[in-house]
């Protein structure tokens, strides 16, 4: 742990009259106890904020407070204001943020701060490596992935390189739903209504299929596969042969994926004269392969007569 830092005996701060916490006066619920170090630092922050001071020592002070409590959003706000008032080289701020973010991986203020700085810098250089080091600690961190999406949009990085990186994340953990979502975002997300070329569609369907063959019960590639088929407006029957690799209503003991049964139920529901097969698939799900969601599968059975699918 770093040695404690106090300001009352620091000559660089002797001109500042600290403003102690207004703990809400007579209201008992508001009285808040702090460690001395944090309390004092905050009282100096209040003092510089009251004077609207922007200076190097304010940066140092906010850094100190953030190291004690990165979740205090007021501190980040004032730091951002100070940075822009001082025109500090923003690359220095990023250099400071990197280890700070790694220490406080769940904190979301850091990400917003980073986004503001990178946006002003106007270049994503180095960000990819930094993100990779963050994901090495928590490969499904929502803030990190959201930030990555923001980078892709802001700097138009819908590239093969980005796709290859995403693929490496899926290779590392085939159940990483965030990585699957990022892939969908890259391939299909640039414009909501545009349908990619046949070559790309085939590539994507094959990619999801090969992932499913490695882990047939993995939800992420199944969602991806069905989402892709829907997005490019293909019928669900496109997936019939593939689903039969994992389940067949005629062989109830040999089901390797409940998701395949789910697909087959939809395929058969749309196919003329196959309603009984659809019902059989849904029964297998309700009774044997996914009984915890029995009510849902029963609901789907109820839709069969109406010729509707989910």
């Amino acid at each position: 742990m770093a040695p404690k830092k106090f300001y009352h005996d620091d000559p660089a701060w002797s001109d500042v009259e600290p403003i102690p916490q207004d703990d809400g006066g007579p209201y008992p619920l508001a009285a808040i106890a702090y460690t001395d170090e944090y309390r004092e630092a905050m009282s100096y922050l209040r003092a510089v904020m009251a004077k609207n001071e922007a200076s190097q020592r304010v940066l140092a002070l906010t850094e100190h407070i953030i190291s004690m409590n990165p979740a205090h959003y007021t501190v980040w706000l004032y730091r951002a204001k100070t940075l822009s008032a001082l025109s500090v080289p923003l690359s220095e701020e990023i250099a400071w943020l990197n280890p700070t973010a790694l220490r406080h991986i769940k904190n979301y203020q850091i990400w917003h701060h980073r986004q503001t700085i990178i946006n002003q810098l106007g270049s994503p250089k180095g960000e990819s490596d930094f993100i990779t080091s963050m994901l090495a600690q928590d490969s499904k961190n929502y803030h990190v992935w959201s930030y990555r999406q923001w980078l892709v949009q802001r700097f138009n990085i819908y590239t093969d390189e980005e796709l290859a990186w995403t693929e490496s994340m899926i290779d590392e953990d085939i159940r990483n739903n965030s990585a699957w979502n990022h892939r969908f975002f890259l391939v299909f997300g640039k414009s909501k209504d545009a349908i990619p070329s046949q070559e790309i569609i085939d590539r994507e369907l094959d990619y999801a299929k090969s992932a499913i063959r490695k882990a047939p019960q993995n939800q992420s590639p199944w969602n991806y596969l069905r989402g892709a088929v829907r997005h490019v407006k293909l019928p669900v029957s496109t997936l019939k042969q593939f689903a039969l690799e994992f389940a067949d209503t005629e062989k109830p003991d040999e089901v390797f994926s409940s998701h395949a049964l789910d697909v087959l139920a939809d395929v058969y529901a749309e196919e003329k004269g196959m309603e009984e097969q659809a019902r059989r698939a849904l029964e297998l799900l309700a009774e044997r392969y996914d009984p915890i969601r029995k009510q849902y599968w029963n609901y789907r059975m109820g839709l069969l007569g109406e010729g509707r699918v989910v």
Partner: protein
Amino acid sequence: MPAEMRLFVDEHVRYIQSLDTRKDELEYWLTEHLRLNGLYWGLTALHLLGHGDALSRQDVIDFALSCLHDCGGFGAAPGHDAHMLYTVSGVQILATLDAFDELEKRVPDGRQKIGRYIARLQDAETGTFAGDEWGEQDTRFLYGAFNALSLLGLLHLVDVDKAVAYIESCVNFDGGYGTSPGAETHSGQVFTCVSALAIAGRLDVVERDKLAAWLSERQLKNGGLNGRPEKQEDVCYSWWVMSSLATLDKLHWIDGEKLAAFILNCQDPEHGGFSDRPGDMVDVFHTVFAVAGLGLLKYPGVLEVDPV
């Protein structure tokens, strides 16, 4: 149900009452930025457990109003900047305690002031909302704005249609919603979007069956619910997922008995409170979501809950 499966109401009430007396603990000041939310969570849990009077009404109102700024926004604690999240908690606390009259008495034109603060945070171009003047945007803030404004009776201060269109732009290939367009579907985010649409009376834009199917897939074999595919179960998701399912009229698609048993297993039967999953440390955040989840499941001893 075995004996250890009961709900330890008295212990939970004492736990929540004790939160404010733990001021010498390190964690207390580290969570200062959540003080007003924490107060709302505690208050709600107590109400649901039928012990709404366990915290002094006047103290709670005084504290909430001491966080209110002239601009109409609330901070997390006295002296903290105003932010959407705390403003929503502030409004929710006043609504729970039926204290809008007291607000008007002490802050002339208080309701309008708060409503205008929230309305200013709407992005005129996209329709979504920022958390503060700093500009971070998230569908959480959009839901918060709708929730608080509808409690204040001031939803007309914002462009509801534009906000609804923004939510529609956040829908993903799996039928769910994330923090912004293209962001991964997440149960918490689904809750915020579905609830905002319910408040706006626009659930017609949701693909009900598809989304509810995704939500019901969150239940794992142990009865608990996760927030995203292939993630661990966590008590707070029992609330996000269940209330979304309830809003979509599909709560019966999950196994309520198994879920109730999972939630009860997350109690600390001795000192009260709930944790994220069995055996972990309890906190007020997971406590309120556990209790609210049991309320949605109509568990005896907990008041029934409005999902939005």
